[in-house]
């Protein structure tokens, strides 16, 4: 190519190396400030990283919109049936009196809570929107104990970075960073629209995370693990969603 002179080539080389250095600096800053999601690798990693970093810079402390009582959806869509296995059915027959929520990992006092114990903690009620990644949504009132309160009770260690949470359907597990775990609207819900949380909506306990899509709001919650390293869980991508091709951070 006759138009590509030596000078242009050198300028381009300098530009590329400056750009590369800039990216390197940006990456190490992003790591320091916790702006890199666990599923940052692969073809779609750059997009996931941009989204998570932008959201953490812009919306770390924002509050999900809360609605008025007359905006509550008449027909909240449960999206599937509750677990059909004998364990769940047995617990359900007993009014979930034997349901336990185990909290372990980087905490001062690993504890197993009963439903009654969770209900004895200060509760919070909020009317929020649940949006599914498919495109549909509903608005409901959710009643529960803020996750931050339970984390305070067990004494989260200062080096904790994430909370992993697991359904009784063990293939469904998720994790969130501490910004979301300590957010006042992140609830361990046991009530919905004035009554007990229906089985179809994740009863007895569903983690509600109104600033992210529905698949992060894990149903039939049985375990919480506080950690500083998501690589130890599953394939190391942060949760079961990236293993199935979905984003770990679903605030989009």
């Amino acid at each position, binding site marked *: 190519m006759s138009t590509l002179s030596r000078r242009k080539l050198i300028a381009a080389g300098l530009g590329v190396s400056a750009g590369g250095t800039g990216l390197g600096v940006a990456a190490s800053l992003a790591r320091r400030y916790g702006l890199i999601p666990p599923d940052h690798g692969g*073809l*779609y990693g*750059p*997009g*996931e990283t*941009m*989204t998570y970093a932008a*959201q953490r810079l*812009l*919306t770390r402390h*924002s*509050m*999900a*919109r809360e*609605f008025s009582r007359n*905006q509550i*959806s008449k*027909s*909240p*869509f449960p*999206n*599937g049936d509750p677990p059909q296995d004998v364990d769940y059915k047995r617990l359900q027959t007993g009014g979930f009196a034997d349901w336990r929520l185990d909290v372990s990992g980087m905490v001062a006092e690993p504890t197993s809570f009963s439903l009654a114990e969770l209900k004895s903690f200060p509760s919070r009620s909020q009317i929020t*929107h649940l*949006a*599914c*990644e*498919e*495109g*549909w*949504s*509903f*608005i409901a009132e959710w009643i529960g104990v803020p996750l931050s309160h339970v984390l305070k009770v067990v004494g989260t260690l200062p080096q904790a970075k994430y909370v992993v949470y697991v359904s009784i359907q063990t293939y469904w597990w998720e994790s969130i960073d501490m910004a979301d775990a300590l957010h006042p609207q992140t609830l361990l819900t046991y009530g919905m629209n004035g009554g007990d949380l229906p089985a179809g909506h994740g009863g007895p306990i569903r983690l509600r995370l*109104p*600033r*992210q*899509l529905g698949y992060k709001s894990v149903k039939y919650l049985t375990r919480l693990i506080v950690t500083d390293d998501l690589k130890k869980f599953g394939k190391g991508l942060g949760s079961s969603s990236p293993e*199935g*091709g*979905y*984003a770990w951070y679903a*605030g*989009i």
Partner: protein
Amino acid sequence: MAGARHSAFVRITHWITTVCFVALLVTGVEILISHPRFYWGEAGNALTAPLFKLPIPASRSLVPTGYGYVLPDQNGWSRALHFEAAWLAVLTGLLYVSLGLVTRHFRKNLLPGRDDLSPRALSAQIANHLRLKPAADTTYNALQRLTYLLVVFCLFPLVIWTGLAMSPAIASAFPFTVTAFGGQQSARTIHFFVSIALFAFLMVHLVMICVTGFRSRMRAMITGRARPQMENA
């Protein structure tokens, strides 16, 4: 550069946008078929009456479609690529608009002249287009200018805004981005219609390129140069 039909920044941003747009279109369709129903307001789901629904099967079994089968579910990678392409398109668009202002590209090449906007001049242009008569001018005609301005400054911003309005985290920090449309489901419905408008633009754009000479137009948008005799052909 004298003789260049399209400046380098226009050509580069054009082709990046082209790649992003095709990716957004394909993945948008894949995302859409997981729930081909539309609602108005804040909320809507399979148990709610839709505003309208598309007469197509869905990729999820719990959506009522009237079909006895379910399409392959491609939502995972489609969403990832949709958002990655959206990031690249938005950054490219910001670069394009900044350079377009700095180089006076919009003023020189896209803002129509006052005379071109008279009803008489416009109707003559519309008649020429409907007869698929190649334009004799070497610069954009008034209809082209108006269409490009509409796409760059109305349709793209609107499709980005309605896309962001579907994000629960964006909605939490900037509620007016959602309430301006009357709710998250309204934003989704408008996102769909603006995408249709952009797709219609793409189709007309491609037809016009073929009518005015596919090879010369492609050469102009790739190399920046076009032979004058080809221009008027």
